[in-house]
């Protein structure tokens, strides 16, 4: 299916292009717009973006696959990311990951059967002093214990 921005996104895209002296520099902000609309960067979006910025699809693909936050396939409705880096590990990240795997009944790197949650492990999110932590979509949840995790997960639609 051909990709296109929404009308409102088109306006934002035009505004974004004005921030940079060369078009290509708008690639990252525009890929964020793509992901905001579809939840991931599809092959069609790559082609669209290449045309939009006058660069090759390979250029767009190279960038979209380099940065880990750009999803390359549809993920769950909520992306649950657990930091398993050193600092979080010292403060119980192993426990948190185990707890979430059991609670959501899913392995890290996979999506729950109802498509609601995608669980993954990530490297340092700059939340070392408030470990263990997870990021769900755009929000950090810090200093977690079982009760807090239960409450946060229950609060998600």
């Amino acid at each position, binding site marked *: 299916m051909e990709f296109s921005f929404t009308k409102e996104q088109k306006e934002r895209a035009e505004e974004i292009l004005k921030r940079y002296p060369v078009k290509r520099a708008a690639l990252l902000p525009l890929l964020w717009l793509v992901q905001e609309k579809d939840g991931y960067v599809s092959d069609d979006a790559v082609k669209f973006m290449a045309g939009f910025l006058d660069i090759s699809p390979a250029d767009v693909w190279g960038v979209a696959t380099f940065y*880990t936050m750009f999803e390359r396939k549809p993920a769950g409705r909520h992306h649950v990311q657990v930091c398993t880096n050193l600092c979080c590990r010292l403060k119980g990240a192993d426990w948190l990951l185990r707890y979430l795997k059991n609670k959501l009944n899913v392995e890290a790197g996979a999506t729950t059967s109802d498509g609601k949650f995608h669980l993954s492990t990530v490297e340092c999110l700059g939340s070392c002093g408030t470990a263990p932590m997870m990021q769900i979509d755009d929000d*950090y949840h810090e200093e977690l214990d079982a009760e807090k995790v239960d409450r946060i997960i229950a609060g998600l639609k």
Partner: protein
Amino acid sequence: MMKILTKNFGVPDSHLLKVARANGAYSSLGKLFAMKPEDAVQEVKKSGLRGRGGAGFPTGTKWGFVPKGTGKPVYLVVNADESEPGTFKDRAIIEKDPHLLIEGILIASHAIGADTVYVYFRGEYYRQWERFLSALKEAKEARIVGERPFIHAHRGAGAYICGEETALLNSIEGYRGVPRIRPPFPAVSGLFGCPTIINNVETLASLPYIIREGGEAYAKIGTEKSRGTKLISVCGHVNRPGVYEIELGMSIARFLAEHAGGTPEERALKAVVPGGSSVPVMTAAEALGGCLSYEGCEKAGSMLGSGGMIVMDESACMVRCLADIAKFYHHESCGQCTPCREGCGWIKKICERLEAGEGREGDLELMLAVADNMQGKTICVFADALAMPVKSFVTKFKDEFEEHIRFGRCPR
């Protein structure tokens, strides 16, 4: 103790312009705009301020590298791509006092003659990016930020390497975040081939004080080689993890006791990584005899780096800790240089087999040899950032590594 960076951290709603202004935000600007740009550079040189991103390069000197009269625009790029494990200090500034950062941006732009500023946020700092944007909006509405400089907030998308300044420039230009070969240095040919200064968030946040009170006043704080105050973010096995502002030169022992509140259940201290995961680890003895200054950390066998302190008590397994560090660097290597791309993977594999009890005779020597082949042999210092922990962990905690091989399991 003088509070320069954190003075508003405890003030409710300190991120709002009204509150920030009541607490002195933007009060340096009157003096700044009466100064010639070169005088502002001079003031910062006098202050002795060194870059707070990790490298510690003198800020005023860096500014002085911008060539005059090239006819090209000059860019200021703000490095808010904080992602080194153990480091969460810039985040505190952005969340709690974004106007201090904006004031710093205005000062630096005036000094170097920048008319466009890009603030590069790590992609994960979405809420922090929003907070900055709303502070910027308020500052624009109040006409504190005018037509020039243009200040744009640019979001990364998950790549630690983009904290490396030339990778960051490539990322803004819409490329993969791979570091560039220097020279040319960014001050001469950086963003879009134009003169560019890249400064860390904390560095910029230190500027309002320097302009308001003068470089000499700032230089009176700290030690001879480490002037001023610095944020230390402390985590791991401590009772009070968090972000603390210290006068440079404070002893690590005092910092751990007074700020970090000691180790949980008074367990014995085993090791301290003082400046983010990339600096050499200190033994407890080195740490307790060391100081938090650029020269003090070096003397104690490490580096001040970003001031991201990771504390391990006796319950930590040093092999596991190094394995976690190696996992990070393996995941984040941009893959451009072979010694780094391959070396990080080798180190990770060896650490993991040691921890799993499958270590072999000669593994420690192999790790050191791999680290030697990484250090100083690549375009940027990313490879060194793993080689230094490897060398220090393996040599300073050799017994623990050998035990893993001898016992065929992790003894902890």
